[in-house]
């Protein structure tokens, strides 16, 4: 399902899309719909190079995000995982290389076209990033009200359905400040699927969640992806959870892809970097000690340097 060009849908087109909206969401509510992942990549990254603050974040990186599947991007903290999502979404521009989405080069698009493409992507921020001056209902209705000309009654029904899919229908009039972390993320997920995008990016969805919320989120992500035929990119450092639902995993470290493959392949990988990450070893290619002068010298050095 692709979005139309032009920033507002006509009522007729909106009605046609309603039918498309309703079906998959109902399917999602009813569970269990397998969609096979196709092999053509939706997002193609070639030769990506990016600096920030004097540091090289990405060094000539190539990544393919297959269509219709869940791809996990893993790696130690600070390796630029969130930056990657921003590069795909066009919020940052690479120093070199191309980021392609459905054949369009994101980093060369002009602002109006970029905004059009973004309607086909959804993004789930780490904190949910709900708009704090409106309640939950209005938050989810926000993209619908901004981009479509649907009447309020239809918007009401759509929002109710999205909320029901994430299990928050009863909380619709709460303000974001009154939600718990897990609820906020589920609400943000409902908002991300409001316009029925083709791709959703999840920025560290499992970080800081209790086991129950974690379980709920995993189930939601999997169901959303399968029922709506989405492509999902998950950035995380939760090895077990990511491996449990991802169809394909990339492991990044030090600005390069140090491992890629299906979860099983990664688990059995013999690359040093991947092993340290997967086995949670505190020391290895990613050192435990931040670079510093020798320990003995520091202890024995007097104030005046003798």
């Amino acid at each position: 399902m692709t979005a139309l060009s032009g920033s507002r849908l006509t009522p007729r087109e909106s009605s046609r899309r309603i039918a498309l909206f309703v079906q998959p969401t109902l399917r999602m509510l009813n569970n269990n719909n397998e969609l096979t992942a196709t092999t053509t990549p939706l997002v193609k990254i070639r030769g990506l190079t990016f600096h920030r603050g004097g540091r090289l974040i990405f060094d000539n990186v190539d990544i393919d995000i297959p269509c219709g599947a869940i791809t996990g991007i893993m790696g130690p903290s600070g390796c630029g995982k969130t930056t990657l999502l921003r590069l795909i979404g066009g919020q940052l521009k690479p120093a070199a290389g191309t980021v392609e989405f459905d054949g369009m080069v994101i980093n060369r698009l002009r602002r109006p076209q970029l905004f059009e493409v973004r309607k086909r992507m959804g993004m789930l921020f780490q904190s949910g990033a709900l708009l704090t001056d409106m309640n939950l209902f209005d938050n989810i209705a926000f993209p619908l009200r901004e981009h479509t000309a649907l009447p309020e009654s239809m918007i009401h029904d759509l929002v109710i359905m999205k909320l029901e899919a994430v299990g928050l229908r009863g909380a619709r009039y709460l303000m974001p400040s009154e939600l718990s972390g897990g609820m906020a993320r589920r609400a943000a997920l409902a908002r991300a699927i409001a316009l029925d995008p083709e791709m959703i990016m999840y920025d560290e969805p499992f970080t800081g969640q209790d086991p129950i919320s974690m379980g709920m989120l995993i189930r939601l992500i999997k169901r959303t992806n399968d029922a709506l035929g989405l492509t999902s990119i998950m950035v995380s450092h939760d090895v077990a959870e990511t491996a449990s639902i991802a169809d394909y995993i990339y492991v990044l470290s030090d600005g390069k892809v140090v491992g890629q493959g299906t979860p099983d392949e990664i688990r059995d990988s013999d690359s040093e970097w991947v092993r340290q990450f997967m086995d949670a070893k505190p020391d290895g290619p990613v050192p435990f000690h931040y670079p510093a002068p020798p320990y003995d010298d520091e202890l024995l050095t007097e104030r005046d340097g003798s």
Partner: protein
Amino acid sequence: MIGGFVEFLRFLGRFGLGFFERLGRAHLFLLSLLVCLPAVVRRWRLVVLQIYSVGFLSLIIIVVSGLFVGMVLGLQGYNTLVDFGAEESLGVLVALSLVRELGPVVSALLFAGRAGSALTAEIGLMKATEQLSAMEMMAVDPFKRVIGPRFMAGFISMPLLAAMFSAVGVMGGYFVGVGLLGVDDGAFWSQMQSAVELREDILNGVIKSIVFGIAVTWIAVFEGYDTVPTSEGISRATTRTVVNSSLAILGLDFILTALMFN
């Protein structure tokens, strides 16, 4: 010794370059804001909401301050004029001081402190909690949805607030002068009416308040948008808004007065 001096020069250089960099960023920001204005006017409901929060909620402080300033003008003016036997001109003194200078300037300073800092904090917080980023990813331009309406609300509210400040101030002066100190009622108004020009004084005062409104709102909104997204960054940005707005108001006041009233 030389090393310290060289360090100082490098510091100055960095500070100067940083200053110019910010200045350039602020102007590019203003440009993108102005480009969005036609789209913002179409979303006038958002502007109305902002006028409520920025204009109406500042009303109390403006009106109360205006009243007190007018009353003090009445008192001090009377004390000075009575020595020259010119206390009948109290109306002229109060009206001209308010309409030409105190109305636009003081209300702009109060506005910067109350509404300007609130705008900076609000936008800065939205940036820190990634709400602006989320909006961008939802293909909603934060300039048109968040920043533009606040900017419009600022420069629409400012002249209205300044006019109310001056009007209430004149009433305050009347209260003190005629009510308490015994200046002649008719002389108060008639001398005032013959001395205050519609085009030269009142219109110029309105132009001043519009210019101040644009300057203060621009600074407030830019500082919010440009903050370092931490709590310390936001508090520093809020302080900068108030300080820079005040300096801008007083500086622009001098320039405008020199242009208008020589």
